């Protein structure tokens, strides 16, 4: 209990120690989450006042459908980074699994088998990352820079510069379609299911608690009986498999499996997780925060796209958000220190 959430017990004690403080945030919705929510609301207000197309169901449908691949990959990345690991190869697995999916279809495999083989490839890719990181003991940041090149390279070896666009109609219409007659994209529902299950498990499940424990202190969690290696290995496989699902969905969405699908997407995924309040040093961050950050980045991107802002400038804004996400808490901490010191010596 004390291992996985030292900050939790602190905030639990705070009201007793400090009678002036009447309200303390619940662990899953702190000041960070509140600020993100505030930013999302500001973006939505600004967006809808500047463009009549922003706050429309159609725009929501387009934005959500286009972001399915990205959104799916954010989920395992949040878990991994809470466990103090990182997977930079995630977008390469995304590309590779799309290629495997396309080639399986081309080779005459039935649709379910093609999807399964793509996911299996993703899981194997995750297993390789996990093996190198956990069993050989290499830093995941370096390992996954290597596998980033390796997996993308294999995708290029398999498909070269070709693309497979002859995907089964039932699949492309699923990936591009909406639920029934509504404007809710199918892919978005898939993402919601994955995110809700992962979110509940992270906040309440024992896997989630172990993940936080491993991220806070490997030694302490080992002493309290958490099988650190197993947890980390599992997370890498989870990351690979979800990246594969995302890659397959994306190839269906654009009706084309190409080796360069999703190039560079890993940076956006990491940026979203970090903006969501997950620490690079593990053990910290809430899933709600990450989801709000995802919402913030996608709405912001959608607003900028409607305003004809170029992609590079959009990335700049994400970069600024990211730096803000790290700098603001430090500055707040410094100001708080200063105020407390003043109060201590009047």
């Amino acid at each position, binding site marked *: 209990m004390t291992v996985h959430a030292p900050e939790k017990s602190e905030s639990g004690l705070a009201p007793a120690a400090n009678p002036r403080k009447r309200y303390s945030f619940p662990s899953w919705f702190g000041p960070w989450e509140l600020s993100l929510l505030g930013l999302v609301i500001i973006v939505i207000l600004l967006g809808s006042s500047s463009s009549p197309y922003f706050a429309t169901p159609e725009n929501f449908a387009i934005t959500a459908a286009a972001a399915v691949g990205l959104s799916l990959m954010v989920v395992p990345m949040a878990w991994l980074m809470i466990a103090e690991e990182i997977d930079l190869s995630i977008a390469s697995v995304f590309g590779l699994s799309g290629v495997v999916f396309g080639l399986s279809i081309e080779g005459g495999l039935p649709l379910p088998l093609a999807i399964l083989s793509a996911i299996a490839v993703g899981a194997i890719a995750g297993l390789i990352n996990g093996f190198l990181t956990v069993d050989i003991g290499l830093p995941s940041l370096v390992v996954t820079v290597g596998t980033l090149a390796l997996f993308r390279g294999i995708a*290029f070896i398999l498909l070269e510069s070709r693309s497979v666009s002859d995907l089964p109609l039932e699949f492309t219409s699923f990936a591009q379609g909406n639920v029934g007659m509504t404007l809710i994209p199918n892919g978005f529902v898939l993402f919601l299911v994955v995110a809700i299950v992962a979110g509940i498990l992270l906040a309440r499940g024992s896997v989630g608690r172990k993940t936080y424990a491993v991220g806070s202190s490997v030694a302490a969690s080992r002493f309290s009986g958490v099988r650190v290696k197993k947890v980390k290995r599992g997370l890498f496989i989870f990351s690979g498999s979800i990246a594969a699902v995302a890659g397959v969905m994306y190839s269906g969405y654009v009706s084309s499996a190409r080796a360069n699908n999703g190039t560079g997407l890993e940076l956006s995924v990491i940026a979203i997780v970090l903006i969501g309040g997950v620490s690079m040093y593990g053990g910290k961050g809430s899933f709600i925060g990450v989801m709000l950050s995802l919402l913030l980045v996608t709405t912001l991107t959608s607003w900028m796209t409607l305003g004809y802002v170029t992609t590079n400038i959009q990335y700049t804004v994400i970069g600024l958000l990211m730096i803000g996400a*790290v700098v603001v808490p430090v500055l707040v901490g410094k100001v708080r220190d200063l105020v407390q010191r003043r109060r201590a010596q009047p």
Partner: protein
Amino acid sequence: MSTLNATRKAPQHPSSKPTGRLRRLFEQRETSLVLVLAGLVVFFSLMSSRFASVANAGQIVTDMSIVVIVGIGVAMVLFTRNIDVSTGSMVGLTAFFAADFAAKNPGLPLIFVVLASCLLGAFLGAINGALVATLKVPSIMVTLGTLYIFRGVDSALAGANQVTAQNLSPAYNQIASWTLFGFPGIFIYALVIAAIAHVFIRHTYSGRSMLALGSNPSAAEKMGIASKRWVFGAFVLSGVLSGFAGVLWGARYGTVDSSVATGFELVVLAAVVVGGVSVNGGNGTILGVLVGAAILSVISIGLALLNVSQFWLQAIQGLVIIAAIIFDIVIRRRVEGKGKRS
């Protein structure tokens, strides 16, 4: 008290024990890397008659030079237990800035263009350094953020324009294409910078401080090393070298637009890591960076000569990176094991 002396190798083996020179040589990471490089050269020479030629050697060293120059800066940052992934955008931004500056002021001596580009690089590096050193924010986040931001500034500056060789004076191209007794000038820059960096890291108090800092930050601080200053300095150096590399990029390739050097940060990082610079700080050499860049360059040019499809290149590079880091940890564990036994 021995932090400064012992930082070059985090796993220390007692130096009092008389070890043969040869054996010590073999325990060095660089020796094995040079052997790998030699093996690759022999392999490609046997496989392709065109590989072992002066022209091809020139091609290889030209190809690796910009990677080496930027890699030295990244290595400095890694020494201090930080990371700089913004180099791709720094090179891109300074490449456009320098080429554009030179094209718009044709009368200006080129040395000023080079200086301006380095200065811009220093400024960009200082932004990274200030955020990391003073606010103690994780460098991966800062530089990932500035990777985006610098690229955005680049594209705002460049728009859809590009500077081509026609806009530039032939002298601009000469910055990279001059030769000395057949030796490519661009490689001479890399060698000179590497030599200075080597002396700096191995033989000056400042360089030792940087390594000590990465090796054990709290011990270094207790020794009175101004950690903030050196972390900041490492980022500025990385920026300056990226700024210089930006000029070389424009001079070498002739065409500069806003997408120049996209993804270059990973190429550099790969070369540096293959060269044995530890991402955990305090460990690595400039020679390693040179050899790491050479290995990657030999592989890419060798494979091209063997008519291996370009589509294989990336996968093989990935394998080499992974092999290099596994190799690194195996050696380090062996050395550590030896230290423990005695």
